[in-house]
């Protein structure tokens, strides 16, 4: 299937708070934005790491949760009609001969944009891999960090490791179709919906699955096909668990990912920028928020907002060198108010 190329002013990589606010600032300057995020939702770290934790240092919001901040930024950006592309990781970024940029995602989306804004925070969220020796040999064959198609696990002897919602949900959802289901977790406390925990315990009661306390210390098998694991129990005794499929669910962590391959200057996994334009070593590619670095950089959401505003001024001049850009205030400019849909 060939994908149609999406043409736009700006591709923003990352739909966290800085990417969302950049839509607003760029929108005031008539720049249309597409946002791409590896997560299935907007908000970046605010949504993935601490949706319910209060944030106290957003100007004029004495306390706000990561979730609410995300919702408000989405609302603020909405008048500018941003297009969101979730579950997509930007893999390739290249400059075209006409000065624009081509952006390709792992899901096959292709964009052509006048400017690119990297607002990728700590990089791309990827599943945490448990530090079990030799696990790489099994990955993709009998060890999987996500469930793309449930059917792939029909009649398998599945062992799920973890104590969060993903571990519990997949235990419950896969149990009816697998040959055998076992769950392993290091303690009898879960970070999951109480209802899911109760359901899991009920399945154990009905002898439809087994639950083990402990941690996997070794994998056994041949040619990437798992046959069993060694578990260190909580009383330090070791025991074996037979299984042909292992699904570890230990949450997500951030990795720089493909950004390292785009030919940009990097410094300790961060993208150096200047503090006038927040431009990278490649003219037309900008970087804002936690992913960038410059003398005095503070990794604060409010710094990212400031960076978004200054970056936008530079980005519009790069994209439309002949356009006359005047600086205006939303309080007094009728033209800005029209764009916001309030005048």
């Amino acid at each position, binding site marked *: 299937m060939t994908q149609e190329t999406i043409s736009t002013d700006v591709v923003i990589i990352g739909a966290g708070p800085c990417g969302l606010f950049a839509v607003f600032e760029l929108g005031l300057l008539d720049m249309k934005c597409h946002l791409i995020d590896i997560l299935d939702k907007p908000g970046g770290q605010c949504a993935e790491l601490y949706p319910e934790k209060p944030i106290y240092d957003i100007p004029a919001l004495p306390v706000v949760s990561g979730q609410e901040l995300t919702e408000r930024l989405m609302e603020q950006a909405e008048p500018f009609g941003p297009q969101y592309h979730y579950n997509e990781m930007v893999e390739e970024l290249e400059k075209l001969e006409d000065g624009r940029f081509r952006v390709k995602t792992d899901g096959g989306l292709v964009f052509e944009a006048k400017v690119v804004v990297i607002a990728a925070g700590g990089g791309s969220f990827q599943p945490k891999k448990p530090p079990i020796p030799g696990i790489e040999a099994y990955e993709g064959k009998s060890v999987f960090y996500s469930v793309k198609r449930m059917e792939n696990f029909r009649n398998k002897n599945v062992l799920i490791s973890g104590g*969060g919602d993903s571990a519990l949900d997949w235990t419950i959802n896969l149990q009816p179709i697998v040959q055998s289901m076992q769950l392993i*977790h290091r303690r009898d406390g879960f970070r999951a919906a109480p209802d899911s925990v109760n359901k899991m315990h009920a399945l154990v009661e009905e002898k439809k699955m087994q639950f083990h306390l402990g*941690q996997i210390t070794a994998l056994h098998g041949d040619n990437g096909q798992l046959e069993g694991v060694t578990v260190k129990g909580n009383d330090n005794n070791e025991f074996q668990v037979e299984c042909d499929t292992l699904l570890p669910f*230990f949450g997500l962590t951030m990795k720089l990912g493909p950004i390292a391959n785009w030919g940009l200057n990097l410094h300790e996994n961060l993208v150096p920028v200047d503090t006038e334009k927040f431009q990278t070593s490649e003219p037309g590619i900008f970087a804002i928020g936690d992913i960038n670095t410059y003398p005095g950089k503070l990794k604060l959401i409010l710094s990212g907002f400031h960076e978004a505003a200054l970056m936008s001024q530079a980005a519009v001049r790069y994209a439309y060198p002949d356009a006359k850009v005047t600086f205006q205030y939303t309080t007094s400019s009728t033209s800005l108010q029209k764009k916001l849909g309030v005048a």
Partner: protein
Amino acid sequence: MRIILLDGKGREHELEAVEGWRVMEIIRDYGFPIVAECGGACACGTCQVEVDPEWAAKLHEPREDELDMLDQNYGGDWSRLSCQLIMTPELDGLRVRLADIAIREAA
């Protein structure tokens, strides 16, 4: 006041500690490549340390959210999140080893 940090290669470092600071912040302030990606919100688990067993009993019990994060990060018997350990004079001399998961990969 000081803490003793064992780095990824097992080398010992003596760090000047500040009362009221999180152990994670002290380690980060010295420039060690600690991941600590959530910045101390007990939300990521990437500031994990192994506490010397002799010191473990002197620390407060981990709260539920810290236990959750240790679950997600393959914590062992002596594992704690260094963002949840706040320096007090009683902890002068605390010995911790930086967990592999807490060490930032070289760029």
